[in-house]
Every structure is written in structure tokens, then in C-alpha cells.
């Protein structure tokens, strides 16, 4: 085991996988940085520091700095994937799916089905997402629910360095388009990472806590917030089953149902507005499949139905908090 943070786990996995498989290419804005400047291509490695050294090692044919053209970035990744390569396309901010959505949604996601199962589109789109840095309405969104709703895409959200490695490796070894979400506030999170080849299967939730009184489902940064709430609740003798979904498509329905069948009480935490959200999706699934196990109405802890504000205090009010998770847990437990 090595100790590293999520950023380092991503960088080292890209290095290892690109070394192993010469079909893997990387493209995006400033993934090299410095092209066409006096400073020269300097392998600055992206504004998030997630690709340093790759250009130096693998060269400009495989590590491609692009102009600001998200449609072309994602479309080129789709085409390269059809042509037998394994592109990794970086969206500096997940919000820029807005510019490139057609290539994700109508192209990548649908090729295999439309073409009668004859094609593979092994593209990985890396999306930097999430609120918490006051980057306001167009640079903070968590668009995973929208992409989860699109058949043909797999959607993964690592929360630990080990999962960052395991899920990225799995994405690069698989043959379907994968949306790989990186929360901008989690890059520095440290943890143990298995050495050598390490793959994390999709659709297997991570059991973060086993407490037995209430089931809390979360992904991304909301897992960390839920853990904080779990600590508070534990002091009052309340035990939380906390599941980190790891992937929202495929979804580990069995793990969710198994826990809810034992606790009868469900809270889903989601860093998006509530309508058509992941939280709503999971609550509906549980209501349909575990209705008789439920002892209280499921609770959703989400942002309000609004875009994301800029001011720090407004953003804090917008994002679900450990305190809101704690309150929701107390609400489902109080229900008789």
C-alpha cells in the first residue's frame, strides 16, 4: 500500500495505464499547457495538476493540448474510440458538458445500440465537478444525475484515492464510454492505494460504515459530509449504514436494498437540486422494491431548486451539509 492523494492516484494511474496500453491517448485544454508560449510546452499538466509528465513521456501524438473547443474534444474522443483507440478526454469543468453534450449523449452513448451491437466506444471523459470553491453557477455543478439518466454511459465518482485508481483502471480496461467525475474539493484527500494492478468493479458500492439504525446513501463529497454526520450521531448511540455508491450507472441496487431491509430508514444525500436527481431515483427504487421494509418516509438531502450562488455564505447554504444530513437522520428515526 502506498499513501497518496486522489490527484496523485489519478496521475500515477494515467502514467501506468498509458505505459501499459499504447492505444490510450489524452486530450483536453491545457493538459500539457504552455504550447505556443515563450515558456514552451512545460507539462504543467492541467490546471488541476492531473496530467504532469505525460506529454514528456508519451509525446504530442498521444497527449494532445486542444484549443477551447469542447465539442471537438469530446467528438474527437468519440471518433478515436470508434477507430480503435482509448481516448481520455478532459473537461476542465464538468459544466462544459453543456458545450459538448451532443457528442456525449447522441454520439458516444448511442453508437453501440444504434449500430446493432457492432461497435465499441471505449472513451473516458474526465469531468471536474462540484461546489465548494465559490466558482458560481457555471463552474460548480454536479451533472452526474443527468448523465446517469443516459443509457449507454457508465458514470463513476471516486471518493478515495484507492477508488480513484481502481475505477480509472477499470474504465480504461473496459469497452464502454465512462464518465469519470473528479470532485474539485477532493483532489487533496489522502489514503492508502494498493500497488500494482488494481481494478475496482463498477456497480459495487463501498460500505463506509455499518451502524444498523439508518441507511445513508451518498456519493462524492457527500460521503465525507455523511461521515461527519455519522460521527456526531454515533455520540448519541445512533448507528449509520453509510454506502458510497462509487458508480451511479451501474447502480448497486442490491447493496442499497440489503441495508434498507435491515434498517427500514433511508436518507439519500445528493449535491444537486432535488428534481430528477439521483436522490429521487434511489428513493423511487427503494419505494418500489422495499416498500414493506420501510419504517419511515425516505428523506432526500439535496440542494434547493436553484443554480449555484457565488458568495461563500450563499454557497454554503446551497450545498447539503453534515448538519443537514444529521437532521435528516434524526427525522427518519423520529418517525413513528
Amino acid at each position, binding site marked *: 500500500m502506498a499513501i497518496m492523494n486522489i490527484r496523485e492516484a489519478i496521475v500515477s494511474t494515467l502514467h501506468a495505464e498509458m505505459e501499459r496500453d499504447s492505444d490510450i491517448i489524452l486530450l483536453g485544454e491545457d493538459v500539457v499547457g504552455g504550447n505556443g*508560449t515563450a515558456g514552451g510546452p512545460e507539462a504543467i499538466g492541467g490546471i488541476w495538476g492531473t496530467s504532469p509528465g505525460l506529454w514528456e513521456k508519451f509525446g504530442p501524438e498521444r497527449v494532445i493540448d486542444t484549443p477551447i473547443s469542447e465539442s471537438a474534444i469530446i467528438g474527437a474522443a468519440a471518433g478515436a474510440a470508434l477507430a480503435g483507440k482509448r481516448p481520455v478526454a478532459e473537461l476542465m469543468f464538468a459544466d*462544459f458538458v453543456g458545450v459538448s453534450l451532443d457528442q456525449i449523449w447522441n454520439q458516444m452513448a448511442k453508437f453501440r445500440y444504434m449500430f446493432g451491437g457492432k461497435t465499441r466506444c471505449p472513451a473516458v471523459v474526465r469531468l471536474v465537478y462540484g461546489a465548494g*470553491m465559490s466558482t*458560481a453557477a457555471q463552474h460548480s455543478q454536479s451533472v452526474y444525475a443527468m448523465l446517469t439518466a443516459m443509457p449507454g454511459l457508465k458514470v463513476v465518482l471516486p471518493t478515495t484515492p484507492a477508488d480513484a485508481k481502481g475505477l480509472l483502471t477499470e474504465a480504461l480496461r473496459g469497452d464502454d464510454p465512462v464518465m469519470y467525475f473528479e470532485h474539485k474539493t477532493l483532489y487533496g484527500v489522502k489514503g492508502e492505494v494498493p500497488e500494482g494492478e488494481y481494478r475496482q468493479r463498477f456497480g459495487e458500492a463501498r460500505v463506509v460504515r455499518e451502524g444498523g439504525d439508518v441507511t445513508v446513501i451518498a456519493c462524492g463529497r457527500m460521503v465525507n459530509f455523511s461521515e461527519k454526520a455519522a460521527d456526531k450521531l454515533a455520540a448519541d448511540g445512533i448507528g449509520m449504514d453509510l454506502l458510497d455508491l462509487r458508480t451511479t450507472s451501474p447502480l448497486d441496487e442490491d447493496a442499497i436494498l440489503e441495508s434498507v431491509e435491515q434498517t427500514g430508514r433511508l436518507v439519500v444525500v445528493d449535491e444537486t437540486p432535488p428534481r430528477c436527481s439521483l436522490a429521487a431515483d434511489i428513493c423511487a427504487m427503494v419505494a418500489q422494491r422495499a416498500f414493506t421494509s420501510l419504517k419511515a418516509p425516505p428523506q432526500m438531502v439535496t440542494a434547493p431548486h436553484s443554480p449555484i*450562488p*457565488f458568495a461563500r*455564505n450563499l454557497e454554503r447554504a446551497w450545498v447539503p451539509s453534515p448538519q443537514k444530513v444529521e437532521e435528516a437522520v434524526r427525522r427518519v428515526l423520529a418517525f413513528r
Partner: protein
Amino acid sequence: MSGVVWDNWQKNTDGRATVQFNRDELLGAYRRMKVIREFEERLHEEIKTGEIAGFTHLYAGQEAVAVGICDQLTVEDMIVSTHRGHGHCIAKGCDVKGMMKEIFGRAGGLCKGRGGSMHIADLDVGMLGANGIVGGGAPQAVGAAIAARIDGKGRVGIAFSGDGACNQGTTFEAMNLAVVIKAPAIFVFENNHYSEHTGDAYAVGTSKDIASRAEGFGMKAWRANGCDFFETYTAFSELLEYVRAGNGPAAIELDTERYYGHFEGDPQRYRGKGEIDRIRAERDCLKAFRAKVVGAALLTDDDLDKVDAEVIAQIEEAVVEARADELPDPATVADDVYVEYY
């Protein structure tokens, strides 16, 4: 702008307009450029305190573009701006104190603290919004131009875009649409030679000349030194007359410089050695303006020094008031999503 006289540019032998300014216009233009500079230099300092959240992209170095263009617009002309929008906002007449409060995330900000530096807008002065999405604005300027043409008052819609934004498909589509429908749309390309950490020499293909792209779409295009107020103003005056006369869209590429990093905190490793010192020494629009007007005995150094002092005091006041202003009420977080919701 009232009081500006220029010869009919088409009659000039060199094809260029000659623009004459009176004393007030010169002092006003200098003041507006200085307000932008001081606003940005002050923010550069204030950001170090950690009090200002989010991304801030400073416009310092490019003042002659915003002022050289917006000084010729009326309040009814409409501009769409970019992530680097403070200069456009100030030049178009946004309230400086309201802007400062917005950037400080305060309730009294122009957008109630909801938008921040990247999303300042003031429709009352024809400022249709800064934009966090690179390339998001150009199509909207065409829409503004469509509206302007229907209203028949000779108004125009203007998109400010960078050398990075000119590579976005939305910009291409907007230019073509404007040509197809002959809209009174103006595409202003501020080439500061960088899109984040990448140079225009790499990211803008072919001739590296953005204006020629606009020409390729079939519109008339101008080129000017964007670090010189008078050159920018003169070129744009020709362009504006052409567009207001109903000749369809036009473009202008301004060669300019950004003094600070892409965003505050950018280590700028892509810069050449001594590059910033050189551009500050050789391409400073405020220095160039001063040299020209003092050299021609139109204004004195004292006149300009007085403006400098007043502007510094004005920005100081804006910062003090911003800091003292209330934070937005968290209970309002989901207000203003709709006009009506039922």
C-alpha cells in the same frame, strides 16, 4: 458619444478616420481606463487577503480596448462580455461600487452576490452579462443585434471574445449566422495572446490572425493596436459607422496584453523571461495615452495626475464600502430563479 467629430472615413486617402476629441472627452477616456486599472490592481492586492472567493480574471493591460470601444456606444447598444469582464462592465457604465460589492460577495452587489466576478451584468446600461462559458456570448450578441434591428433605432449588439473564445464552435456559428442574416452584430476579438496557459501561436490555427477568420465568414474586419486608445477608437469608429449604416456584421481584432495571470493565483510559467516587465514598459495604454495627449499639449501631466488621485480615492471608497456591506441572506438562496413559478 456626443461631440466627437470625424471626417467621413471613406473619403480619407489612407482609408482611416481622423477623430478629434475635446478636453472633456480625453479626460473622460483617461479616467475610465484608469478606473479599470486601479480597480484591477486593487483587486490583485485584496485577493491576497483571502477575503474574495472564487475565480477572478483581471482585465489590467486591456483597458484601451474596452474604453476605446464603449466610449462610442450609447447606453442602448448592447454588449456581451467574458469571464474577464470587469473592464467591459466599467467602460459600459456599470456602477463601480456595485461591482466591487459583487466581487466581495455582498448583498448590495450588482447581482446580489449571486454571480460574482464572472457573472456581472447590468441590463440598464446595456451590459448583457459577463460569461463563465468561453464562447457563450457571441451568439447572444447576434440575438441582441436581431432585436436591435427590429427596434430600428440603429443600435448594435457587440460580443467581446478572446483569442481562446475564437476557437469555440459557438463563435463560428454566431459569425456565420450574423453574416447570413446581415445582423448589426460586432465581434470584438481581444487577442491578448493567451488562453489560460496556451499561446495563440498554438491554438489559433492557420495565419494566427483572428480577423481573417471573420473575413472568411464574409464580413468586413478591422485590425488595430489594442494597447493604444486612439488606434482602437479610430478603427472602431469606422467599423461602427459601417455597421450602424446597415451593412451587416463586422469584426475587429485588437492586439493587446494581459498584465496578470489568467486568474489570480496563476504562477504564469508560460511567460518568457522579463515578458511582463517588457509589456508593461512598452505596451501600457495609460502611458501611451499620457505621452500622446501631453506631447500634443492637449492635457498636462497635472490634469492626468489629478484624475489618478481621484480614481485611487474612488476605488478606496468602493473597497471600504464593499467590505462594510452586509452578506447576502442565506434564506434568499433560491430566490430569483424564475420571474413566476406556478
